């Protein structure tokens, strides 16, 4: 996890993509990824088109490529899986560079790799161009249950506080000469985590009482009026619509 925990991957550039309401970006990018996932793995050209499209969006959003590429590491365990697929999968074998590989496995590995990478790129695009607060508003607009939005907002607000607690406890532990061995460290970390839970829980209680004292009645006041206009939706949905066109073409050309 890079950056400040409360900010996610947000990179402020003030691009048109940043200004688009969060609910539009959420729906558009999810629909886009759904099109990518529905594309047959053998339509190689289609994935090229998707990649070019995403690269275009990343350019429009003025995101630093290094940040985007660094985030791709989250899919590493599945890259390993994808690389193993040609060797473990069943079915007819073909010779690649003198090594017998499963044909289905090769295509399957490519499938996981291509779709996974495009999916992470789309998710990075969303998280780098949307602040947590905008995301909350967007989710609220998309009718996510109010209780869930409230829990989410508290989590986002306090995750840096709790992480800070964890950090301070670690520094305090180490400056007191905590056991350095593996088992000793595990025990110390776990005991610290227990104390952290009690702290977090009690903080939650205090926050709730403070909210009640300020007149909290069970629903949060609206986070702001950030409704999306028709033109916002029109601009946002061009991306998944173009992707849908590519998906349909790819399915028919097969």
């Amino acid at each position, binding site marked *: 996890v890079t950056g400040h925990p409360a900010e996610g*991957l947000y990179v402020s550039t003030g691009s048109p993509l940043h200004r688009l309401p969060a609910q539009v970006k959420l729906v558009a990018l999810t629909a886009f990824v759904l099109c990518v996932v529905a594309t047959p793995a053998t339509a190689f050209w289609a994935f090229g088109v998707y990649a070019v499209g995403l690269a275009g969006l990343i350019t429009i959003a003025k995101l630093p490529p290094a940040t985007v590429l660094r985030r791709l590491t989250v899919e590493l365990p599945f890259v390993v899986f994808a690389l193993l697929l040609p060797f473990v999968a069943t079915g007819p074998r073909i010779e690649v560079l003198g090594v017998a590989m499963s044909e289905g496995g090769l295509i399957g590995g490519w499938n996981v790799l291509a779709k*996974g990478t495009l999916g992470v790129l789309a998710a990075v695009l969303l998280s780098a161009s949307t602040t947590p607060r905008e995301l909350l508003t967007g989710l609220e607009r998309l009718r996510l249950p109010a209780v*869930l939005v409230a829990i989410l907002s508290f989590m986002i607000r306090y995750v840096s506080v709790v992480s800070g607690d964890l950090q301070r406890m670690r520094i305090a532990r180490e400056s007191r000469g905590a056991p350095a061995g593996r088992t000793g460290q595990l025990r110390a970390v776990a005991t610290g985590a227990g104390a952290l839970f009690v702290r977090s829980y009690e903080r939650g209680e205090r926050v709730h009482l403070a909210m009640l004292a300020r007149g909290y009645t069970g629903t949060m006041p609206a986070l702001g009026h950030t409704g999306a206009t028709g033109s916002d939706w029109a601009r946002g949905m061009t991306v998944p619509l173009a992707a849908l066109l590519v998906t349909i073409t790819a399915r028919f050309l097969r």
Partner: protein
Amino acid sequence: MHVPDGFLDVPTSIATGALAAGAVGVSLQRANREIRETGPALAGLTAAFVFAVQMVNFPVGAGTSGHLLGGALAAALVGPWTGVLVMTVVLLVQGLLFADGGLTALGTNITLMGVVTVVVGYVVTRAALTVLPRRIGSVVPSAATGALLSVPLSALAFTGLYAAGGSVDIPLGKLAATMVGWHLLIGIGEAVITAAVLGAVVATRPDLVYAARHLRQDLVLVDEQGRTSTVAPDRPVPAVRPAGRSLSYGLAITLLIAGVLSLFASAHPDGLEFVGEKLGFGGSAKDSATAGSPFADYGVSWIGNEQLAGALAGILGVLVTIGVGLAVAKLSSLRKANRAERESEPSGA
């Protein structure tokens, strides 16, 4: 173990999405009462806690490391329903703010890491608790067992989903064996951390452990005459009265204060506090399921003894009113206000 986009086909992703939405919906309904009592802040901070603890890696072996999933731990600490919500929120944040786990795989990830781990963790914990001696300490090995099993079973569920919606035919038996074997190792780490965290919580605040609520000892209350009575501490005690009543109550008090009678209004809270202290309910509320918020014992003194509270507060109110009323009776302009106050007295108490 965050599943990326495209790992499972579209129908499977949509099916797991619907499953996750259903599970979250049921959890929202079942956790509604708890969340109304304790507020969303508490669940949010528990989610922040799980998120923070997930960042701590532990070595699994062969140079790799695993991290806590936290489902079983959350289930033991805050209960299965709130636990599912907490894990859902953690996964939402990871998927939407950190690009960890695909957008279309969000439902899959919530099902695997939010629902399966919490449900398995909680069911195993409760099952183990029925076998082990009825002590609060038993919750530690029980939850550890739950944590140990929750990870490989989640991996097994993943294998099942792959069988249904995976793109490549690979020997499923081999995949299942590899996944379960590997995640059993991670499960051991999960179990160790869960046990240690729970052990620390049981040592300091055993009342916070949801899975062991029924194991808390009965409270012994001693009244002024020296008679003792026992009260079960885990009897659900709503800290906040249903909105309707507290609203009308608040309205009545607000009207009183806002009106001409703000002079006498202080008689009311005094009466209430007196009753609450006299009945000595602060102690039981402190160890109750809803934890020791002042709000809790306020609520108990009210609900449990409404009539007595009403009578005492009423008598006090009338006495004070008569005293002050005599003093102000000289001012003829306040006659109207006096009548209004006498009318509102029963509802105020």
